């Protein structure tokens, strides 16, 4: 061993934060068109909460789709939990995704089924099969976890209500419970509060950020609400004109400084 190597080791942080997500030189484009963005690099450590902001069409949703492996990068790479997505076979990708929770702008719940059944579906990634198709068939353990998840978002009393009879805010909270029931290490959300009125949006964002923080999961969410970004994220990543235009801590940041992203 050389002396230099020993010296370098001395400078390593005492408790390095595990990197859950690493994006390196990422570029994405749809069908031979100009890239939506390129040269995007950033890392997210275990337990961090990151807001992804940018104007309409800046590529936030596309970036999230790259993170989930739904859009293959035109260039660069995405690593989740230390594994390069492009190197994974489909079974391995599914395995990896089972450690990820996802919430979209639309709640995307299965109509006609109860809130509890919808949350039980969140267990399917880790235990596949007919028993977790409906709450009525589900193993006691699944039902207990699902009910606990509903309880955390304040909807335990609505467990047996059909989701098509719930309000938008309640539906979104059920979707959050479904995303979190299997205790994912990484939670991705694409404008989770955008379809809700300001009060409900505030509540849902509040519940969402708190529940994710409680589980210690890493959170990446997109939003157009800079208040939400500043209140619920430790860090803001901004896209503008196809580039990473901002990567900064929210501490001491004011919304006015972010206006430039939308010019």
């Amino acid at each position: 061993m050389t002396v230099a190597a020993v010296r370098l080791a001395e400078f390593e942080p005492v408790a390095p934060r595990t990197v859950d997500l690493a994006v390196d030189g990422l570029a994405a484009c749809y069908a031979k068109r100009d890239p939506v963005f390129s040269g995007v690099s950033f890392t997210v450590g275990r337990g961090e909460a990151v807001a992804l902001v940018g104007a309409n069409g800046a590529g936030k949703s596309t970036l999230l789709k790259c993170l989930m492996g739904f859009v293959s990068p035109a260039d660069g790479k995405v690593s989740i939990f230390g594994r390069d997505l492009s190197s994974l076979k489909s079974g391995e990708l599914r395995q990896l995704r089972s450690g990820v929770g996802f919430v979209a702008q639309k709640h995307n719940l299965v109509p006609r089924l109860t809130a509890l059944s919808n949350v039980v579906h969140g267990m399917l990634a880790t235990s596949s099969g007919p028993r977790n198709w409906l709450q009525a068939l589900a193993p006691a353990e699944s039902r207990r976890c699902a009910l606990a998840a509903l309880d955390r978002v304040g909807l335990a009393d609505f467990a047996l209500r059909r989701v098509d009879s719930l309000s938008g805010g309640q539906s979104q909270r059920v979707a959050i419970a479904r995303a979190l029931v299997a205790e994912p290490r990484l939670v991705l959300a694409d404008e989770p509060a955008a379809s809700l009125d300001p009060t409900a949006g505030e509540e849902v964002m509040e519940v969402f950020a708190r529940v994710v923080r409680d589980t210690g999961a890493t959170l990446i969410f997109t939003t157009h609400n800079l208040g939400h970004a500043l209140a619920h994220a430790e860090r803001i990543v901004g896209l503008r004109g196809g580039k990473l235009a901002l990567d900064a801590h929210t501490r001491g940041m004011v919304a006015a400084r972010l206006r430039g992203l939308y010019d």
Partner: protein
Amino acid sequence: MTDRTRTSPVPARLEWPSPLAFIAYALGIAVLVWSLDGTGWSLSELATGLPALADFFSRAFPPSLERLPSLSTALVETFQMAIAGTTVGALISVPLAIFSARGQLGTRWINTLARGTVAVFRTVPDLVWALIFVIAVGLGPFAGTLAIAVDTAGFCGRFFAEAMEDVDKGPAEALQAQGVRRIDTIFCAVIPAASPAFITTTLFALEKAVRSSVVLGLVGAGGIGLELKVAMDMFDYPTAATIILLIFGLVVIIEQAGNYTRKRVLDGH
């Protein structure tokens, strides 16, 4: 404000068809005339036939209740054929629909096979299926039930697949983003969302099955149809009238029950 006066000219109410469309219309009318001619349509023949029809009705009235018990048994058998055949057929159609719906499950080869099977089931008329099954399992209601099952599998297979293609992709995709398998998303997200269409389609299939189980009797595949044929062949019109009324009653009851259930399902129950 001057813009207002510079509007484009008012379009014509009807546009002249293009030459190609004109030829298509002309061809359509020609085919219709040719078909009416080929089938010997003649109002005068219909007019001379009307007294014969009146004669049939006068001789059929009053319907004979003499054989009501045995006719009722045959009617019940018809009903049982319809219920059993529709249920079995609808169950068979679920896997066929899953494999033939676009973008759900299976390799391209399996998809083609499933679509082909559904197409064959649907395009071969139920009467032909009945003839085939009479040869296979002999005369009687079992042959008819099999014919209805195959016909229903073709009918439901196609519409179930369409219903599955039409449901909102969001829920299934949201679950796939979390690593849920396709097979699971089909059963927990796609089929529940498509279930109203499944139920209404199955009810239509049942109504269709009741009507066709009457016809299947004519080729000896069980049910009340055979009784009707025998009565007509023997000029026993009062009995035939009873049979026709019984069939009418059964079809109306099934359709009403179907309408009621469909309405409840579509209202969201």
